[in-house]
């Protein structure tokens, strides 16, 4: 079936190339063409500059959550960069091979991500996406605050505002790890806010949340 299987070894990621080719090759060509419009020719990656350009063409701010969602869809590994493989993966899944189609696909993408089943995964992804160094396990408070705002700001405005405020004034934690990050997600979903009656510090909530809850209670008193 795949006549052109062994022959086309043009690019380094040739294995997947074949799969894509076997589908609508015209679509893939257009996707590749779009990629080249933003990619840095020497590295063959879309770098931050290219991403900025892309954002402006899509008419979204580069801190908009939808770019993050796009990265998620692409399963992009490195923050600020898209490889060709990732680009192909994402746009193929979105069935977008022009900039306009991509723009139109964004609302649908958002809906998909916000589905309960996907959002936890997306939330975790957002954290990993920000880990820039090889062995890095935690993210500094400043970045966390920005990330929280982007990722959870629209759905859990109050919790995010309070938590960000707390993180900024406390001194115990300089970084947040994945466990604490996910803990906050569970917190938003399981605990009513701002009364927080269901919260029990004797359970296995991360300590930072215990302190957070204590801080709010003191404020409220």
């Amino acid at each position: 079936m795949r006549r052109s299987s062994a022959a086309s070894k043009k690019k380094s990621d040739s294995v997947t190339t074949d799969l894509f080719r076997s589908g609508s090759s015209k679509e893939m060509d257009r996707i590749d063409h779009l990629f080249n419009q933003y990619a840095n020719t020497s590295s063959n990656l879309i770098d931050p500059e290219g991403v900025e350009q892309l954002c402006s063409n899509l008419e979204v701010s580069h801190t908009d959550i939808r770019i993050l969602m796009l990265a998620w869809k692409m399963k992009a590994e490195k923050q600020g960069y898209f490889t060709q493989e990732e680009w192909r993966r994402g746009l193929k899944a979105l069935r977008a091979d022009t900039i306009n189609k991509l723009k139109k696909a964004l609302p649908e993408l958002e809906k998909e991500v916000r589905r309960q089943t996907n959002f936890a995964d997306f939330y975790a992804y957002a954290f990993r996406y920000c880990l820039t160094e090889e062995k890095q396990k935690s993210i500094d408070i400043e970045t966390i605050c920005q990330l929280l705002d982007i990722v959870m700001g629209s759905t859990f405005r109050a919790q995010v505002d309070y938590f960000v405020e707390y993180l900024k004034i406390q001194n115990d934690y300089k970084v947040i790890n994945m466990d604490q990050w996910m803990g906050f997600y569970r917190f938003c979903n399981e605990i009513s806010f701002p009364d927080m009656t269901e919260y029990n510090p004797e359970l296995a909530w991360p300590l930072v949340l215990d302190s957070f809850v204590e801080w709010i209670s003191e404020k409220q008193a």
Partner: protein
Amino acid sequence: MSSGQNPNIVTMEKGFDLIDAAVIKLKRILEGKPEPDFVPGEYIGNYTTVYNMCIQKPPHDWSQQLYEKYGSIFKDYATHTVLPSIMEKHDEYMLRELSRRWDINKIMVRWLSRFFFYLDRYFTVRRSFPSLTQVGMTSFRDHVYNNVHFNVKQVIIALIHKEREGQQIDRALLKNVLDIFVENGIGSMKRYEDDFEDFFLQESASYYSRRSSRWIQEDSCPEVAHYLHSDTEPKLVDIMQTHLLVLVAKQLLEKENSGCSALLRDDKTDDLSRMYRLYHAIPKGLEPVAEAFRLHVTAEGNALIKQAEDAATSGSVEEQVLVRKIIDLHDKYMVYVMDCFQNHTLFHKALKEAFEVFCNKKVAGSSSAELLATFCDNLFRKAGNDKSNDDSTIEATIDSVVKLLDYISDKDLFAEFYRKKQARRLLFGKFNDDHERSILTKLKGQFGGQFTSKMEGMVTDMQLAKDHQTGFEEYINGKPKVVDFTVTVLTTGFWPSYKTSDLNLPVEMVNCIESFKAYYAIKTNHRRLMWIYSLGTCNLNGRFDSKPIELIVSTYQAAVLCAFNNTERLTYQELLEQVNLNHEDLVRVLHSLSCAKYKFLNKQPASKTISKTDSFEFNSKFTDKMRRIKVPLPPVDDRKKVVEDVDKDRRYAIDASLVRIMKSRKVLPHQQLVSECVEQLSRMFKPDIKMIKKRIEDLITRDYLERDTENPNTFKYVA
């Protein structure tokens, strides 16, 4: 004798006449009137009369009538004779009459049922009527007992009351009468219970309620009288206890002058013993007493703590006084537990809980662990000087200290403070090897070898150091002369960590160091010596103008002073370079030599503090009446550091414990993990829950544990 009919037929009238005569005779005998007994012939005759009347053929069979006659004999007697005779009497006389009449009735029943016996053979059986005996007994009950029992009961209770008040009563009579109550139940205890016991118990209840406030004066449990039916006794004891003790327990215990707290306050050990014995009998009766005991001891302990706080001037607590007082408190109340409270576990527990409360309180910023360590330190230091403190007193005090330590939760903190102070004792003071070893042995016995291993190592080091010193002295004998020099080699792991410094030693000292190094290298293999000059002392000869004075100073101080052997005058900076101490240490040293009590150096400018622009000169004019002067360098014993070190060790201990638990359990919910961890560590300290949580999170980050994806409250071990 004969009638118109068959002369052998006994008519009813005839028969009844015979019977009546017999009955009259019987009554007279029973009532004690002069009357000859029945002779056998009469007895048989009576029996035969009845017999004949029963077996006669109708219409002359008089069984029915005989039966009725029998019944009416009793009824008449009861109604016309027995009852009136009882009712006309009062009090004890009434009881006696009742008792007498009852006995009579019993005999009467026996006799008459013999006469009428033939009825029981066939008639009563066939007709399923009550037997003759039953008729007789029932008759008494119905016609006599039922009418008198109320009054009789009143009399009995009055008599019992009399006895309670201390008067003598006829107990045998009471017993007999109460037996009547029992027997009139005819097979059941109901009459006894309803007609007597219930009233009696009720009355007793109110009696004891009224008397409850005076129970302590009475020395014994009121005896339960023997005349009561045995069933009543437990019920009565129950009532007594309920009213005397249980219902008023709270008041009794709290009562101002006689309650438990008051007894404890006034040291009324006899009364307390009595209280124990009484409450011991009630189920759960001791619990409120133990509670009162615990509260009392806690209050006394708290008062001691407060006293110490108030007395603490400028932040320093008189721990000798306080710890002594706490030890005395413990001894005092332990005696109570063993004597008054018969060594009962409830009271041991109460004592323990009380001590655990106040023994863990901070006093003016110092933890109890620290205070106890300081107490020991002073105890051993003074022991050398104070001969009044003989060995057995010291031993006893050591025992008390070990007991107290059991109540303190931060045992590891005590260990650390103790270790630091022990180091100072061993290195600087005179120490008594026996005492040091004694306390360590006892601590080891109570808390395990790991608790004392470092401290024991330190004491052993001192012994080894002596041996080395002897060896060293032999070694240098014959070698070029060096200054007299003693070295103590410390095994690093045992001793607290001390700062080293790159002190530039005066040349004379350098030679000493080198020769010891050489000696040590011969004696041992592959050991590195780290010199802690901050702990050394030096004897210097100060050649002052008026007279030479021997100075006993620390090595640091000696290094600074010796710098002036070659130059008259040195600036701070020059000293800093020459001696190579850090600023903090140099300032301290210079202060002690130029601004304190003895000014061996003159400082320019002559201010009270050292500044980096100062310069110093040897003060040749210095003199003192003493020939030897010891110049103390204030130690930098840092409480904060000890606490920090202990906290660090605790973090490791918690980590180790958590990993150990998870390794064996594999999967465990959060709360269980925390509680098991606390349990494991409780021998040494009480871990802070927050710290445990933090360590768990740290272990998650380090990939030892992970959170269960299904259940975020559970952790899994990551192999």
